[in-house]
């Protein structure tokens, strides 16, 4: 698995909440049997006009965000389908980090990312950072004010640093297991296969009554 330790890059803004996986990568790009080439599908329907030309009104097509590798969005990014293609598209589209707000409202928490998307991100070395809503609002304002603003995501220190004349740093929380996996670039399957004995023990204690086979 790809490691993530620190990353510095230009910050891009996508001022939308509930960006679903159908928007991140529309279905026509899910037919590939390869793991590469998904950048072409990233935000395809938003990036293009009906005649196929680039849509100048779509935020991420703007020159100020060209080459950006840190994407800041609104809450519940990646909701919808389980397609890992969405993470592949974001990653292959040049992003290493996505930042979204965690909102607490009326005693309810609205997370920055949908569960399956966040899970898939870890497997592909894409760092998802949740920050409190006012902090994300502040980042939106600063990036709007200072085009080509760069930031560094330091996973070990759990800090997102904005490189203004005077640096501004925000601390972020992250699941310790996710952090460990990303920093060490661990291969989940190898780790699990190292516990093969425990799996075999479980299987002996829980035999399958009616296995699936073509003949039944």
């Amino acid at each position, binding site marked *: 698995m790809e490691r993530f330790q620190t990353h510095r890059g230009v910050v891009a803004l996508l001022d*939308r*909440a*509930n960006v*679903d996986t*159908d*928007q991140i990568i*529309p*279905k*026509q790009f*899910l*037919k*590939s*049997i*390869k*793991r590469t080439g998904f950048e072409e599908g990233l935000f395809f*329907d938003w990036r293009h006009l*009906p005649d196929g030309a680039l849509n100048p009104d779509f935020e991420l097509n703007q020159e100020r965000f060209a080459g950006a590798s840190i994407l800041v969005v*609104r*809450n*519940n990014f990646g*909701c*919808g*389908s*389980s*397609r*890992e*293609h969405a*993470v592949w598209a974001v990653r292959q589209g040049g992003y290493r980090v996505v930042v979204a707000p965690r909102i607490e409202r009326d005693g*309810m*928490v*609205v*997370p920055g990312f*949908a*569960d*399956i998307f966040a*899970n*898939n991100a870890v*497997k*592909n070395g894409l760092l998802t950072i949740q920050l409190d809503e006012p902090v994300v609002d502040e980042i939106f304002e600063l990036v709007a004010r200072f085009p080509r603003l760069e930031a560094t995501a330091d996973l070990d220190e759990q800090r997102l640093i904005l490189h203004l004349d005077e640096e501004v740093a925000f601390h972020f929380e992250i*699941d*310790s*297991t996710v952090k460990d996996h990303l920093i060490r670039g661990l291969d*989940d*399957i190898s780790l*699990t*296969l190292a*516990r*093969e004995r*425990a*799996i075999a023990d*479980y*299987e002996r204690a*829980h035999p*399958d*009554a*009616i*296995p*699936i*086979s073509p003949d*039944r």
Partner: protein
Amino acid sequence: MGKTLFEKIWDSHVVRTFPDGGALLYIDRHLVHEVTSPQAFEGLRMAGRTVRQPGRTVATMDHNVPTDDRDEIKDAISKAQVEALEKNCSEFGVTLYGLGDARQGIVHIIGPEQGITQPGMTIVCGDSHTSTHGAFGTIAFGIGTSEVEHVLATQTLRQARPGTCGVTFTGSLSPGVTSKDMILRLIGQIGTAGGTGYVLEYGGEAVRRLSMEERMTICNMSIEGGARAGMIAPDDTTFNYIASGDRPFAPKGEALDLAIAAWRELPSDPDAVFDRTVTVDCDTLAPQVTWGTNPGMVVDVTGVVPEPGEVRHVSPGDARKALDYMGLIPGTRMTDVPIDTVFLGSCTNARVEDLRRAAKVIKGKWVASSVRMLVVPGSEPVRRQAEAEGLDRIFTAAGAEWRFAGCSMCLAMNPDKLAPGERCASTSNRNFEGRQGKGGRTHLVSPEMAAAAAVAGHFVDVREMM
């Protein structure tokens, strides 16, 4: 303290716990389809690994398959994906219900149908609507392709332990109001991220009275409320479903009796505590229609398109974008919104009972001349059963198209698509922008409401037709 249904199943599937509270969970059933599996099989091949438990794995093709002409897949890329699944299943020894097989269908329809889905199991699939199987009292959730590869190789998954949320549906449904309306109302209430991080357990008197088909509709859309899994405690309705029909992988005779005795232990204990609870009142529930671009943007059919500033869980800016995309003006009565297309299908609402209920509404009537209606059974067994009951002839006599089984226009990966601007009353699960075709406008409804809209040419309160 007692345990919830979720806790009982989780605890009995732990191979190993980790200090962070997560666990390596054993996976009883792994369902596979053509879209999210090719890279996983390729990963196994490159690492020289095998499928650990082919007997716990079953594959079908549903997302890409044509529903009109079955002889040939004309789209070369779709065809390559379907052929990759055939090759992978044969190479790795996985049972495949492919195109032309009598059991082919949408993966979440054939699991229960074949008796593969049973109470107390853990079930995963590279598809977010795996939550459907929770209707049988299982922990069932969607996973990404890396996790598909992990399950193929190890028959386990490392998972963080989610919270539990009890959802109680009180009261009873009026005629014409369905389980689709129950789940749409819930999502409207909690928002599309309201269940993120939780497993929802649906209960209450209204749920107890539902058939298995109706329960599956509710659990199916758990993910639209952000929850990876939703579940319903098994009861006699569940056991009767499993014991009935031709379900080759369900236990029979004495084995079934023993299994039922064990399954009766699964429901949440009376003193079990949920991390969170939500209540939805069914006495006042009206048929629901979505107006926007996510399933939480929903109103009563008797209601109007809302003002951007009065939409729960959505900022006015995002609500305005949704209204623009949908081409709707605030204040418009939902019953004044005309439609072009009706899609009756998907893993949410394409079981034979769904088709029967829609057929009842449409029988002896005509689909409005301005409307095209597509009826796509969820599986080939559903299609044959419907044809044996004459449902296909009710639909075709009304002017609807009767198709072969597949996901079809729910996500439009096959040729069944909306044109830009086309407005659809759909029994599927997602009204995202472009979901049913670029520029297409989707309104989610129940099968009854879809059939009623087909006849009227616009949304109508199906209760008036009962």
